[in-house]
């Protein structure tokens, strides 16, 4: 596919002065694609301390209404900081398979 066509297809909407009117719109872009390692939380081991949530640079960990900490794999880049900071080693990792 030619970039030129692609460019035309993309047809980026232009705002005046290149203002972005949609806050937080990078959410459209799934950085989970970048991952080479995938972290996995062992909910059994987890003590719900929230440290993984605190330390994730990508805001890819969230707390469920039930109080569980889970990983949003759409954004998790697999840095494995969460694994390192977990005080009870509830997080482990594997090589990503896509």
């Amino acid at each position, binding site marked *: 596919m030619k970039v030129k066509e692609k460019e035309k297809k993309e047809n980026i909407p232009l705002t005046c002065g290149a203002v972005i009117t949609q806050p937080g719109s990078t959410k459209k872009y799934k950085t989970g694609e970048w991952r*080479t390692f995938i972290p996995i939380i062992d909910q059994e081991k987890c003590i719900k301390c929230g440290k993984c949530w605190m330390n994730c640079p990508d805001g890819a960990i969230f707390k469920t209404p039930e109080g569980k900490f889970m990983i949003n794999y759409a954004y998790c880049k697999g840095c494995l900081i969460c694994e390192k900071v977990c005080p009870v080693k509830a997080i482990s990792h594997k090589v990503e398979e*896509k």
Partner: protein
Amino acid sequence: MKQVLFLGRGGQGAVTSAQILAIATFKDGKYSQAFPNFGVERMGAPVRSYCRIDEKEITLREQVYEANYAIILDPTLVKQLTEKVTELIIVNSNKKPEELGIVTDAKVKCVDITSIALKVIGKPFVNIAAIGAFSALTGEVSINAIDEAIKQQMGHKGTLVEKNILAIKEVYENAKRE
């Protein structure tokens, strides 16, 4: 003129691959030109780079819209290949080509470069080793030229250079066998 596309992840060295290929083909007596896709990509994001190879001087400066060959350094990136490829797609993968689901008119070959790299280099450095596969499967560049190119580009890195050269050879042999 042949156009080669490398597709990898930021940090994986796709840019270096294209550079080394350009150096090597020049050592083979051809003209070459390598350049990255000009982006702001960070480690982990998909990154493209290109190499042009020709018998005569290359003056063309447009970007690569259509490649003769594509080399995908990371099997997870297969879906990111949107460019048209006319001859051959080489994928670093331990799978079979048909398992990858690539829709293309080009041939697709898989070489498990990561395993070889891990074995020979001890680290998953696939970007240079991949050129061995390219050499084996296309004949566009000689293995000796690649060796020399690595030395020119990474000259000061000692054992790593040696290991990469070994890895290239092994990947080459491996790909030849395919």
